[in-house]
């Protein structure tokens, strides 16, 4: 028991490693925020492409469907490797000029864009067609109907599942250490390697949990509030 405690909960080592780990964890946090913003935009583009009506838009729909299927099937780790090590070596602008941090944002956006696009789509489809009918009957174009009537209602409904995906994104920022981004996990790893002790990981784990648990509770709160609102309305 003591050995387990010493291996994982050596508080002196945690305290010693924490400043470095925290500096790295700051990278995780900014990575999460930047990637989230990119994901929100990219996923919306994908979801809208997927929902385009008409025969002319079929190639765009197929692109969106193919993209979403493909990137939801790939492990995030593989995408991070492919983007982080593969893209810069192609020499193709702008990837050849990108920092590792930027490449990490690209990789996470590619993966989570696919998930979040499906969340958006579920939201868009959950808005009853009578809303579209009402809007179109007033003479609004399909674009304006999407913008003013459907999307605002859809986004409101999918905030809880969006937050769920962002908890996942938050955790996966720890994966980008493998391409050399000096984030929290990478720093904890270096520290652990020099001391043959896992306590620095525990320090990092606590950092993650401190962020994700409140986010999870907040998500639950939003879901409950929505349920009560639905009950009150019905």
């Amino acid at each position, binding site marked *: 028991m003591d050995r387990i405690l010493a291996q994982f909960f050596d508080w002196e080592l945690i305290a010693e490693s924490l400043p470095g780990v925290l500096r790295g964890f700051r990278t995780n946090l900014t990575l999460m925020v930047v990637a989230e913003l990119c994901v929100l935009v990219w996923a919306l583009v994908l979801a809208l492409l997927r929902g385009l009506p008409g025969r002319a838009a079929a190639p765009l729909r197929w692109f969106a469907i193919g993209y979403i299927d493909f990137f939801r099937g790939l492990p995030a780790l593989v995408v991070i490797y492919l983007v982080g090590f593969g893209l810069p070596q192609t020499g193709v602008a702008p990837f050849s000029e990108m920092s590792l941090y930027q490449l990490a944002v690209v990789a996470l956006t590619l993966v989570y864009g696919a998930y979040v696009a499906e969340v958006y789509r579920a939201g868009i489809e959950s808005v009853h067609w*009578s809303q579209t009918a009402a809007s179109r009957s007033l003479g609004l174009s399909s674009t304006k109907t999407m913008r003013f*009537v459907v999307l605002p209602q859809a986004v409101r409904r999918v905030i809880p599942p969006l937050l769920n995906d962002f908890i996942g994104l938050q955790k996966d920022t720890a994966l980008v250490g493998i391409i050399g981004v000096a984030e929290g996990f990478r720093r904890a790893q270096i520290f652990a390697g020099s001391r043959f002790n896992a306590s620095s990981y525990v320090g990092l784990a606590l950092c993650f949990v401190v962020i994700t648990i409140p986010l999870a509770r907040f998500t639950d709160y939003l879901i409950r509030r929505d349920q009560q609102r639905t009950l009150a309305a019905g």
Partner: protein
Amino acid sequence: MSALLELTGVEKSFGSAPVLRGVDLELDEHEVVCLIGASGSGKSTLLRCINALEPIDRGTIRLDGAAIAGRGVDLNRLRREVGIVFQSFNLFPHMSVLRNVTLAPREALGMSKADAVARARPLLERIGLWDKRDAYPDRLSGGQQQRVAIVRALAMQPKLMLLDEVTSALDPELVAEVLEIVRELAAEGMTMLIATHEMSFARDIAHRVCFLDAGQILEQGPPEQIFTAPQHPRTAAFLRRVIAAGRL
């Protein structure tokens, strides 16, 4: 003078199920026509086709002499000229009452906010809901919501109003306040095509009543004639059922 609205041979199927089987109908300006008939007879579908919410399979629909069904028709323009009010109100739940009414004038007609509000205000005042302009639809009664929905359509100053069983989703005590608005519109000369189950209302307000049965207009005429001396046995049978149900 040619009719404001002119339907000839309109057919519409959902899959293999025919819903409209050759409908001919004309509406003159300022005319109020009520569509009666059992549920599933095609009343709602007919209205939705006139507003191009459903494409028709065959036939022509003309508004002011111009074809409004088929290729190359600017549907958005058509819909600005034809207002529709739905059974289930379909207000936008994430917008205030005022925003519901001003959205289309602003975004479809390009009016400024001030102009759109200036147009909405007398309409909302008229239905006594200007004070509720900042409320959201879920704070309103069904009757209030439906009156807002009517005003929302009127804000586009349509040439023609389509009313699709606008009182069917309302509690009985709220029906009157909605019908009162419709009555006023009729008195002001608004051209309206009204699908309804309110037979006494139809009798009251309509210049002409059309009995729709299995996707066809079997009989039409002045309300007195339809309700007291129906020519077609199916019309007579329908009215007997309505009377038995205490709705006339």
